[in-house]
């Protein structure tokens, strides 16, 4: 059907009639992105309705751009990279990236999206010494060299490096992508280059900030869409400025996607986020106060929510979480305590600790037996999955564990006595936890039981998240509870950086990660050869141009990582309740739930969700 024949969304009709908004045909790009909805689970829908969601704090409005997931390039459900905002893109040797814009694509304020918006970011923002004090973001530097940015024509831009940058596209497709373009028409009024000093000062004052830098930062924030004025390319645009208890998002009339019938997406007119205590979210969801709820729900709430299905028009689905391990014990290989460090560096100890855990019991007691006992590794949904990784040192064998520990020199007087470290101290492990997830304390309780059998006593220490991480980085803790790999469903194209010491937020080797991150300036080099090997492999992956080569590196890393038990994964594939209104269509019954790479709901495209029946 031709776009003109398709009716306007009800909510925009009056505006269009009043001439405040051009008709749909003019709002859409010449070639909008057409989303086919004729799958077995999906169907093209119709306009209208409001989705109410619950968030536990104003910060959580940041889920909106993640869920909305309009990116230059994004993943589809099978994790292939597809152009989204872009009409097309070309990659040359992983070095030269050419992006073609859609003709007639507009920001939500009606201004066209042009290469000028890319240039503005590149030149006026990244290269402004005030705005970016430390220079352009790290992502753009390969071997300390910047790419060349070119505007090829009115619809084309290009970034070219001398060395391959295989992470680049994945970064653009990530849930919180670095923005290469910004609505320059709007932002220029806040930039010193385009605005008079006096006016800037006045604007800064009006907005309660100190100078134009803060002003520009404040007005251009996209991570938390707090500025309703800031034009966006997302499906819904923010309509509320904080502080508020309710955040309203309305459809972006210039959004670039249409369904196969030519209806401009999103179907849903409004998304309303209500702020409330996180503890109350399950209860409120259970009384039908949320039309689409994914966050702040825990697996333990499932039974309750399911029982609420009878009373309220809601539907509860269970999706699979993508983490490599829902709960994992992370030994701190950089801990200050020399004796413990030595012990933990001994792979036998790590392995022993791992096989002393009865994962089946944990699965049964805490996850209804619905999760999968596993080492911290990739899920079967990933093309990289191998049974061998899952089972690496993930069986339950206390005898073997005891033997390994004996061998490693953690002596034990009697069969039931407690083990001692080499300096004679008893083997008491203080496990650090944030205590945020309720089941963590249950899991820890089971683990203290399991480990008592191998002569190790467990103490639990709870600290707030900031403190938690700080203590680990400072090496004050020996072990922590966290989750495993963020991305448990990688493809060979995705970066294996999580497996190697590449970042300082990796709890098993924060210092080694920092060393790499800071280019050797800070932290310490990976002191274990195996860890160093992982790092080398990672670099190899970055250099690899061919897919098969990358796959090879991935497998090598996975097998080394799991065999060395750098992290003690417990269970993965746990389930996440997803609650949505019964009338809300196109929400898949089964799905993968996680930040990376699915962007939570992002790859399932909430803009295609629609209400069946009367609104």
């Amino acid at each position: 059907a031709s776009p003109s024949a398709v009716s306007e969304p009800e909510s925009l009709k009056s505006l269009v009639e009043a001439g405040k908004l051009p008709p749909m045909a003019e709002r859409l790009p010449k070639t909008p992105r057409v989303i086919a909805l004729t799958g077995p689970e999906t169907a093209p829908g119709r306009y209208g309705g409001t989705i109410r969601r619950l968030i536990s704090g104003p910060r959580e409005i940041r889920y909106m751009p993640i869920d909305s997931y309009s990116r230059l390039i994004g993943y589809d459900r099978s994790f292939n990279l597809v152009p989204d905002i872009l009409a097309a893109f070309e990659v040359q040797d992983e070095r030269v990236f050419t992006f073609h814009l859609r003709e007639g694509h507009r920001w939500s304020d009606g201004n066209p999206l042009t290469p000028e918006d890319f240039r503005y970011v590149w030149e006026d923002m990244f290269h402004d010494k005030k705005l970016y004090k430390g220079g352009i973001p790290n992502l753009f530097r390969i071997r300390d060299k910047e790419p060349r940015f070119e505007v090829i024509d009115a619809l084309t831009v290009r970034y070219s490096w001398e060395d391959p940058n295989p992470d680049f596209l994945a970064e653009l497709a990530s849930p919180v992508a670095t923005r290469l373009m910004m609505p320059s028409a709007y932002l220029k009024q806040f930039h010193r280059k385009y605005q008079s000093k006096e006016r800037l000062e006045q604007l800064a004052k009006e907005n309660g900030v100190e100078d134009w830098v803060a002003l520009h930062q404040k007005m251009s924030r996209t991570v938390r869409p707090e500025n309703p004025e800031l034009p966006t390319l997302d499906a819904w645009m923010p309509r509320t400025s904080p502080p508020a208890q309710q955040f309203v998002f309305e459809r972006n009339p210039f959004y670039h996607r249409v369904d196969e019938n030519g209806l401009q997406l999103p179907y849903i007119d409004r998304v309303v986020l209500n702020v409330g205590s996180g503890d109350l979210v399950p209860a409120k969801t259970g009384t039908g106060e949320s039309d689409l709820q994914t966050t702040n729900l825990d697996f333990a709430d499932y039974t309750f929510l399911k029982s609420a299905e009878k009373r309220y028009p809601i539907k509860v689905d269970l999706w699979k979480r993508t983490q490599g391990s829902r709960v994992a014990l992370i030994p701190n290989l950089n801990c200050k305590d020399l004796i413990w460090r030595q012990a933990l560096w001994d792979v036998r100890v790590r392995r022993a600790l791992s096989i002393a855990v009865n994962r089946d019991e944990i699965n049964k007691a805490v996850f209804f037996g619905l999760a999968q006992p596993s080492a911290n590794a990739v899920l079967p949904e990933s093309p990289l999955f191998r049974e061998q990784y899952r089972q690496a040192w993930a069986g339950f064998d206390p005898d073997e564990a005891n033997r390994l520990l004996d061998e490693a020199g953690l002596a034990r007087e009697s069969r039931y006595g407690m083990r001692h470290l080499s300096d004679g101290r008893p083997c008491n492990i203080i496990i650090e936890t944030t205590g945020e997830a309720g089941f963590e304390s249950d899991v820890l309780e089971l683990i203290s039981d399991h480990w008592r059998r191998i002569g190790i006593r467990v103490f639990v220490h709870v600290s707030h998240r900031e403190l938690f991480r700080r203590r680990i980085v400072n090496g004050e803790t020996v072990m922590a509870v966290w989750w495993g790999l963020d991305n448990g469903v990688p493809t060979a194209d995705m970066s294996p950086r999580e497996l190697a010491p590449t970042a300082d937020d990796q709890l098993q080797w924060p210092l080694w990660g920092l060393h790499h991150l800071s280019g050797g300036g800070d932290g310490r080099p990976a002191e274990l050869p195996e860890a160093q090997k992982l790092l080398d492999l990672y670099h190899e992956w970055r250099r690899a141009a061919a897919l098969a080569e990358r796959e090879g590196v991935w497998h090598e890393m996975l097998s080394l990582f799991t065999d060395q038990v750098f992290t003690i994964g417990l269970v993965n594939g746990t389930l996440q309740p997803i609650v949505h209104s019964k009338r809300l269509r196109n929400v898949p019954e089964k799905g993968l739930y996680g930040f990376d790479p699915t962007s939570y709901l992002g790859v399932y495209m909430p803009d295609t969700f629609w209400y069946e029946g009367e609104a």
Partner: protein
Amino acid sequence: MLRYILWRIAVMIPTLIMISMLIFTIIELPPGDYFESYVEEMRAIGEKADMQEIDELRARYGFDKPAPLRYFNWITGFAHGDFGYSFEYRLPVAAVVGDRVWLTILVSTVTIALTWLIAFPIGIYSATHQYSWGDYGLTLLGLIGIAVPNFILALVMMYFANIWFGISIGHLMDPEFLGKPMSWAKMQSILEHLWIPVIIIGTAGTAGMVRRVRANLLDELNKQYVMTARAKGLHPFKVLIKYPLRLSLNFFISDIGSILPSIISGAEITAVVLSLETTGPMLIRALQNQDMYLAGSFLMFLAVLTVVGVLVSDIALALLDPRIRLQGGRSK
């Protein structure tokens, strides 16, 4: 008296300075700062924070400076009405607190008024009818109110209020009124929701008040002057109100100092559980996020109220019982 009040007001200034130092230390005590917790929050959902921006913010707000300097800046800002800046909301503190204060005052005053309205008659009844069924019954009820933690009470009440009356769980109004300007319908919705927090916050307070009124009254009931008053032919109820009750109010008056701030801060934990749009949850969040100026300024506000409240309580005390000499030492 006037001299006493002036003297006390003069003493307030050093007190408040001490308190401000204390508050500042307490807020500083947890390691890290807002930006660290901000980074953590981002990490929690998998984001990477832009460390550059953070470092910049740190420098901008003087977090690279020593603590005493920051304290000094903060406290001098106070003097010219600048209460600091909320990192979390990216707004001046005054703008953040905004209309939450009014809702808080609404909830608190209704609760406190109700507490008194219920507690005093019951307390008087319990004291004058000691060991009657009424006394036992009300005691039992009140103590159950005390013995059940507020959060459980809150959850149970919300759950059943929803199941039985269809009242939406938590909040002070139906979601559709959130962030809307005040209207008749919104007011109605607020009133509909108000009773749950009021009951929950009120129960423990009421029961405690009942027991204290009862205890203090029992002590006064047998005094000679009660007999005198009865000998005048005064109605027993009036006797009670005018004489023993007034003398038993001492404990109550002495507590005024904490009432004032509690009107503003509200019952934080309950408010968190109930997701009330009051200042309590905001304060806790600010504390947890180390949004230090927001938390600090709010605490400072409470402190001023406390100090004023204590003064009011002392003056009321002297008015209540003319024998009391606030200034004098042990002997006359």
